[in-house]
């Protein structure tokens, strides 16, 4: 396959960036998108050009490190796949592919296509946990009964890998799908109840402090989410936040 790549290049967080064009040939259909970028970088290194910086780790769709806004969509044209699971057979020879970093004020660019998503870590730290000491204190999984439906929904919410595709896709750069998944995975389970009110109030507060936008319910995040996290979680967060605001002592 012969392709024309248009890639955002930016030397550092404060530098000015621009789209640069790289023609590339010899790309095989079986390559993953990231392998294609590795292949490009090999060529760039041979030509004495600085390789393109991009995030990646497990390359099997579970770590949440890869990102990229490809041809106008987070993680590219595929559905329920991360960029590392996207393959070049989705494209045709002769295609021009635009590759841009995830864009949000809360996700500053580190270099080229790599962005700083530590805002998500700070939202998690604000309440995305339960305060139970588990070391040497293992409790039988069935000690507290959990309805199957809730267990499934909590599990579905917990499959969020925190990649940030929701933020990148949302026209408002809203992090509500992420935050709501991280809140729901606990609020659906009995173990999450003791800290439920504080959790939703604190995590939403941290989300606001990070400078993410608001939710317009366009539903774009759900469509582009590689893990298919449902908008139902955002409704649950809205509901929990409303009740927590009304009934919390603080």
């Amino acid at each position, binding site marked *: 396959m012969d392709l024309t790549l248009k890639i955002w290049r930016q030397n550092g967080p404060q530098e000015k960036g621009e789209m640069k064009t790289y023609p590339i040939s010899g790309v095989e259909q079986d390559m993953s998108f990231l392998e294609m970028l590795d292949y490009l970088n090999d060529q760039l290194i041979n030509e004495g050009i600085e390789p393109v910086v991009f995030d990646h780790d497990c390359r099997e769709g579970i770590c949440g490190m890869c990102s990229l806004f490809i041809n106008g969509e987070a993680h590219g044209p595929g559905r329920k796949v991360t960029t590392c699971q996207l393959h070049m057979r989705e494209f045709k020879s002769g295609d021009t592919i635009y590759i841009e970093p995830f864009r949000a004020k809360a996700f500053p660019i580190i270099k080229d296509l790599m962005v700083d998503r530590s805002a998500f870590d700070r939202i998690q730290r604000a309440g995305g946990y339960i305060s139970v000491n588990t070391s040497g204190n293992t409790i039988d999984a069935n000690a507290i009964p959990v309805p199957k439906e809730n267990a499934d929904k909590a599990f579905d919410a917990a499959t969020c890998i925190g990649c940030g595709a929701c933020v990148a896709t949302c026209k*408002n750069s809203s992090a509500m799908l992420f935050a709501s998944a991280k809140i729901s995975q606990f609020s659906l389970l009995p173990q999450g109840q003791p800290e439920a009110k504080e959790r939703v109030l604190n995590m*939403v507060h941290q989300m*606001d402090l990070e*400078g993410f936008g608001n939710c317009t319910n366009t539903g774009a995040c759900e469509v582009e989410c590689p893990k298919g996290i449902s908008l139902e979680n955002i*409704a649950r967060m809205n509901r929990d936040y409303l009740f927590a605001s009304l009934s919390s002592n603080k």
Partner: protein
Amino acid sequence: MATTSKGLFGSSLARKYWMAVSGLFLCTFLVGHLLGNFQLFVSGEEGKLAFNEYGHFMTTFPVVKVLSYLTYFSVVLHTVDGIMLALQNRAARPVGYVKEKQSANASWASRKMALLGTLTLFFIIVHMKSFWYEMHFGALGLDANGNKDLWTLTVTAFEQWWYAAFYIVAITGLAFHLSHGAQSAFQTLGINHPKYTPIIQKTMTALAWLIPAGFVAVAVFLYVVQPGQNL
């Protein structure tokens, strides 16, 4: 421009609650307004007197007055809150994408709520100048019963093609605004349920098109029949 307060004032979710509540209230206002407009289908002296009687009732009955103040307040709240949300949303992405395929994952109306809202606000200002201002502060003639003749003002306005056309374009914009907003308000308020959400979505989407269709029907009727000329 991050919001920093928690609770029901100032947080990102709170702003959305107020948008949803004020928006839904304004939807109920639209239903009431439309029912009143349907009286314009009755032409002739009989229709004129009944409509002016209705106009008098709507501007003097205390309960209606309270509702009208609530409506003004809702319009202001929905506008101010909407502007603040739009500014925050813009600030959340200072550098945009070179290539963005928004149509791949979201409906046009849902992505253009601020634009459609602005168009609707502009329409409300013109519309209130045309009728509300004239009714309250203008020099309207009186009908045979001694009521202000709002009917003649209304029907003659819609006999002009450009006024009717502007009205229909604006109401179409409102229809798109409602097609997303009316059902999405429930999601914002946390109402999302496998049993009820499909019903809510269908009902609210149907209302979002039927209510504006009713307004347009009255405007088309007045333009075609020209009841002011036939009296």
